[in-house]
């Protein structure tokens, strides 16, 4: 049997549906818990709606990007497997394509070549899925991350705040610098989005319109993306 005959079958969509359903259920449960706890603590409903709006606006760009980038995976293997891996998947599309190639090599075949058979496809499905085991296991043991943090900081609220603030600045310093250093449109995208974001957040403070912050990241990332594209051509 040719691997392409089964690659987009109902089975893989159902597998993707099961993991997506579990992910959505977990998110829904956490959302209900967090929101009801906040409301019981005196947070007005308008404030939680504002948080939701901010997150939705911010999510639009990255989600569209995920879909567009997913095209490569869907074309290379199958839309069903792309959904199963990316819906509730851990790897980026690039990582997934690397894992397919690794699996093909392990099966003694070459991905993208006529030599790629059902054996290679079965290996790719297994390796792509199992490659994310570490993150899933870390999620299972999340409660111990909190305990480790408590132990390291002695529960000192000032030190906890320092650790979180340093982590935020450092993570995005690293990702931004590693992209900006490529130069050309990448540098422009990072710098323009950085300045736009700082300006828009400050503008919201100056204008005393905190709800404007809901839009700040979403607008800044689109402005940066378009600037990068215009510069690079």
């Amino acid at each position: 049997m040719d691997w392409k005959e089964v690659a987009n079958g109902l089975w893989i969509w159902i597998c993707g549906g099961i993991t997506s359903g579990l992910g959505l259920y977990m998110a829904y449960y956490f959302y209900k818990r967090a929101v009801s706890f906040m409301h019981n603590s005196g947070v007005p409903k308008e404030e939680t709606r504002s948080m939701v709006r901010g997150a939705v606006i911010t999510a639009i760009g990255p989600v569209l990007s995920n879909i567009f980038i997913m095209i490569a995976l869907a074309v290379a293997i199958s839309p069903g497997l792309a959904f199963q891996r990316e819906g509730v998947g851990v790897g980026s599309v690039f990582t997934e394509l690397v894992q397919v190639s690794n699996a093909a090599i392990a099966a003694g075949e070459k991905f993208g070549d006529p030599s790629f058979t059902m054996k290679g496809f079965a290996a790719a499905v297994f390796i792509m899925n199992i490659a994310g085991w570490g993150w899933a296991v870390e999620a299972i043991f999340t409660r111990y991350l909190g305990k480790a943090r408590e132990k390291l900081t002695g529960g000192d609220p000032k030190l906890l705040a320092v650790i979180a603030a340093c982590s935020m600045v450092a993570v995005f310093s690293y990702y931004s610098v590693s992209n900006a250093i490529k130069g050309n449109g990448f540098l422009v995208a990072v710098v323009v989005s950085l300045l736009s974001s700082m300006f828009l957040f400050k503008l919201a403070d100056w204008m005393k319109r905190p709800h404007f912050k809901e839009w700040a990241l979403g607008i800044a990332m689109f402005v940066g993306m378009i600037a990068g594209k215009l510069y690079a051509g």
Partner: protein
Amino acid sequence: MATVREWHVDPVAFERDYLKPIHRVGTITSTLIFLALFLPSIWLYFITGVFPDWQTILTGFGLAMTYAIPFYISEPIAYYPIVGNAGWYLCGTIGNGSNLRVPCAAVAQEVAGVKEGTMEGELVAAVGVTVSVFVSVPAIFFGALFINQIQQFFPAWLLDAFNRFLLPAVFGSVWGQFILRGWKYAPFAFVLALVPILYKVHSAWALVICVLGTMVVGWAMLRFLKIEA
């Protein structure tokens, strides 16, 4: 209108009514998602009778782990302090931490005016991360379902812009937001990001150096200079 900055979280109630059920459901659901990773291969075996042999699995797994293991170490160190418990359950199982979950958590915290690393920050981050899941999972489903139409509907230059420049723009915009909130750490974080990159350190280890290095600087500023976040 009351601002969220004024609300008070009772630590006992937070532990009992929020964290405990979050951990219970998070652990069970994460375990089920972990087990579901094997489902496609088992199902494929029943359809085709083909299952990779042990030699193939071990070789492929070994190749995959050379890439993944450094990130298994760096990502919880980097993301957990920002997204908290609920956020990390979702980052670990659903992924897209840096480009989607963390930015959504950060903007929700900014809108709410709460500090990260606090109980209030954890609750607000949970809202941001969960909402990003509500948006991304259905969107990916419909995106995969209508992949051909999407390719035809959007102009090539826009697809190219998203493919190449959205990610650096996401990182730049979130960086800008975080520089405003943690400006005193930004110069150190910048240097600690740049140097490992210039020395071509593996990206996951470079991230660990940058994050842990900045945390040490922050600790030293608090310990010796009494500078708080």
